[in-house]
C-alpha cells in the first residue's frame, strides 16, 4: 500500500522522474479514469469525501472551496485554476521539495482540479527565486503536452487545458490569493476586498480557484487509490499525509511526509534527531512565521488542525521553526517583524505604518534602549494589527508570534530593559 503519496517518487539525489517513469509508478492514472468516464461532479464528490484541507496555511476544505465555482450551462465559459507556488512564508520549504522532486504530481493534480471546475487555462504562480523549480516544471509541462495530457481534447475527453508557468519577482504578499490574482493580471499586488470571492469573480473577473502546491499534489493519490485508502493513512480526525519540516538547531533538519496526527515530539526527536548537543528546546513556531509560539509542554500533541488550534496556534504550513535556549527570543521576534514590515504591501494604514513602528522598537530593544513604554506600545500593536483591523491577513499573521511572544517571553523583554542590552550577547 502506498503510504507516502506525496513523496513516493522523490529522491533528491537524482533528477525527478520523467513522464515515462512517473506513469510507470501509477502516474496519470487519474486522468485515464477521467477518459474512462469520470465526470467533474464525480471528482468533486471524491475530493469532498476525502476531507482534504488546504495545505497553504488556512486549512480550508478543498472540496467545499471548489463547490463555490459556478457550474452548468449558465456558468461563465472561461474559468481559471491557479496554483499558489509563491512559497515565501518564513521557515517554509515544503513546496520547493514537491516541485523539484516530482513536478508531474503537481501537473496531474492541476489537470484534475481544472477538469473539476472546467477551467481551460491553469497558471502556476511560481516564486521568482525558485529557479530549480522553474526548470523542473518547464521540462515536465513540455513532456505532458507531448503525451497528450495537456493541450486540446486531452485523451479524447473533449476537455482542453493549457498550463502556463508564471514566474513572479519576489513579494510575500503575492501568496495572499487576491493579491496573487492582481499580480497575475500585471497589477501592483495589493489584496482585493472580499466578497466577491475568487471562486465567483477572480482572475480577470472570471471564476477562479487558487490552491497551494501541496494541496494539489494530494489530488492524484486520492483519485487513484480512493477515499478509503486516503482515510486509512491517518488515525486521527484529519486525513492524509502532510509535509512536516524542521529548521533550527536540531541534529538533522529536514522535511518529511508523515500522517497528519503524528505527535510533534516524534517529528522533532525521531526525524529531526532531537536538539543538537548543548542546546535545549525553548519554544517553536509550528507552521511558519505567522503562527503563535508553542512550548515544550505541547510536544505530545498530535499535529493536526484542531489540536494545534486548541492551544491557540495554527498548523498552517507544518514547517516548524525551533527556538533554542541559546538564541534570544526578542531577537527572533524582531527578525520576524522586520520581515513583515518589509513585505507589507503598503495598502492599508495599520500594516504600512504599524509594522515599521514595531520593527523600530525591536531595534531599540536590540541596542539596549528599550523601555517599559516601548513594551506597552508593542502590546497595543497586537490589537491594532489584529484580525479585523486590516485589509488582509498579513498583519494579523505578524501579531501571532508577536502577541504570543510578548506573553511567553515577558521576562526576556524585561531583562533587555533592565540590563540595557541583549542578555544573550556575550
Amino acid at each position, binding site marked *: 500500500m502506498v503510504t507516502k503519496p506525496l513523496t513516493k517518487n522523490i529522491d533528491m539525489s537524482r533528477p525527478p522522474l520523467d513522464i515515462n517513469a512517473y506513469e510507470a509508478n501509477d502516474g496519470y492514472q487519474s486522468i485515464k479514469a477521467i477518459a474512462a468516464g469520470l465526470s467533474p461532479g464525480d471528482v468533486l464528490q471524491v475530493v469532498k469525501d476525502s476531507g482534504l484541507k488546504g495545505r497553504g496555511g488556512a486549512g480550508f476544505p478543498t472540496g467545499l472551496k471548489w463547490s463555490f465555482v459556478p457550474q452548468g450551462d449558465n456558468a461563465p465559459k472561461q474559468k481559471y485554476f491557479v496554483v499558489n507556488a509563491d512559497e515565501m512564508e518564513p521557515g517554509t520549504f515544503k513546496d520547493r521539495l514537491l516541485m523539484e522532486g516530482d513536478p508531474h504530481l503537481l501537473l496531474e493534480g492541476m489537470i484534475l482540479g481544472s477538469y473539476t471546475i472546467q477551467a481551460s487555462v491553469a497558471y502556476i504562480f511560481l516564486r521568482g527565486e525558485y529557479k530549480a523549480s522553474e526548470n523542473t516544471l518547464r521540462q515536465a509541462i513540455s513532456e505532458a503536452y507531448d503525451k497528450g495530457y495537456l493541450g486540446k481534447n486531452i485523451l479524447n475527453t473533449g476537455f482542453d487545458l493549457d498550463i502556463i508557468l508564471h514566474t513572479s*519577482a519576489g513579494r510575500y504578499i503575492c501568496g495572499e490569493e487576491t493579491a496573487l490574482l492582481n499580480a497575475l493580471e500585471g*497589477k501592483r499586488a495589493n489584496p482585493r476586498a472580499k466578497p466577491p470571492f475568487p471562486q465567483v469573480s477572480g482572475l480577470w473577473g472570471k471564476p477562479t480557484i487558487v490552491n497551494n502546491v501541496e494541496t494539489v499534489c494530494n489530488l492524484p493519490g486520492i483519485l487513484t487509490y480512493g477515499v478509503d485508502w486516503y482515510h486509512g493513512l491517518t488515525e486521527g480526525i484529519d486525513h492524509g499525509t502532510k509535509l512536516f519540516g524542521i529548521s533550527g538547531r536540531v541534529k538533522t533538519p529536514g522535511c518529511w511526509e508523515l500522517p497528519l496526527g503524528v505527535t510533534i515530539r516524534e517529528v522533532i526527536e525521531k526525524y529531526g534527531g532531537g536538539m543538537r548537543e548543548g542546546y535545549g528546546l525553548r519554544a517553536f513556531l509550528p507552521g511558519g512565521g505567522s503562527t503563535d509560539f508553542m512550548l515544550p509542554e505541547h510536544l505530545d500533541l498530535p499535529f493536526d488542525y484542531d489540536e494545534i488550534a486548541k492551544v491557540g496556534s495554527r498548523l498552517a504550513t507544518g514547517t516548524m521553526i525551533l527556538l533554542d535556549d541559546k538564541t534570544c527570543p526578542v531577537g527572533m521576534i524582531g527578525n520576524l517583524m522586520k520581515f513583515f514590515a518589509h513585505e507589507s504591501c503598503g495598502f492599508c494604514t495599520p500594516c504600512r505604518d504599524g509594522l515599521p513602528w514595531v520593527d523600530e522598537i525591536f531595534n531599540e530593544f536590540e541596542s539596549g534602549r528599550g523601555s517599559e513604554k516601548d513594551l506597552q506600545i508593542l502590546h497595543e500593536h497586537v490589537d491594532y494589527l489584529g484580525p479585523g483591523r486590516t485589509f488582509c491577513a498579513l498583519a494579523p499573521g505578524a501579531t501571532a508570534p508577536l502577541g504570543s511572544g510578548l506573553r511567553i517571553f515577558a521576562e526576556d523583554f524585561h531583562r533587555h530593559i533592565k540590563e540595557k542590552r541583549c542578555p544573550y550577547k556575550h
Partner: protein
Amino acid sequence: MSENLIATTAIKARQLSEEEIKEIEHELELYPDKQAVGLEALKIVQKHQGWVSDESLLAISKYLDLPVADLESVATFFNLVYRQPVGKNVILFCNSVSCWIMGCDEMRTHINDKLGVDFGGTTEDGRFTFLPVPCLGDCDRAPVMMVGDDLHRNLTPEKINQIISDYQGKA
C-alpha cells in the same frame, strides 16, 4: 495613450532589441491582455540589460501601450526588479528567521568584510551587488544565499570565500 518621454528630464524610450521583442511577443500569447505581460516584459529587459533603466521602462510602456505610472508601480513593487544598475552577479542573501537563528548575521559581516560592501552596495569592480532577500525556502540548510541563479547552502565563512573566489575567477 502611453508616454514615451519623461518631460521633466527629457529621457526618451530606447529601442527594444529584436530578442527582447521576440520574448515579449511570446509572453503576449500566454495572457489575455497586455497589462498582464508588464512584469514579464520588465524581467525580460532586465535579463538582457542587467537592470531596468528609465529608457527601458519607457520602451516597455510604449511597446505594450501601458501607462508609465502603472508599469513603474509594478517595477518598484517587486524585490527582484532592479531600477538601479547592479553588479554582474547579484548576491541574494537570506536574512529571515531560520537563517537568523543559524547565524546569518555573522555570514553577512563576513561578506561585508570580504567584498567591502553591505546590503544595497555594489563592489567597485562591478562584479557583485549584495542584497538581502526574504526567506529563500531552504531553511533546513540554513544559512543560505543565491548568487545569480545558483543557491548556496549551509554557509560558513570558508564556503563563502570559496564561492566568491569561484565567481571572481569567471570572466
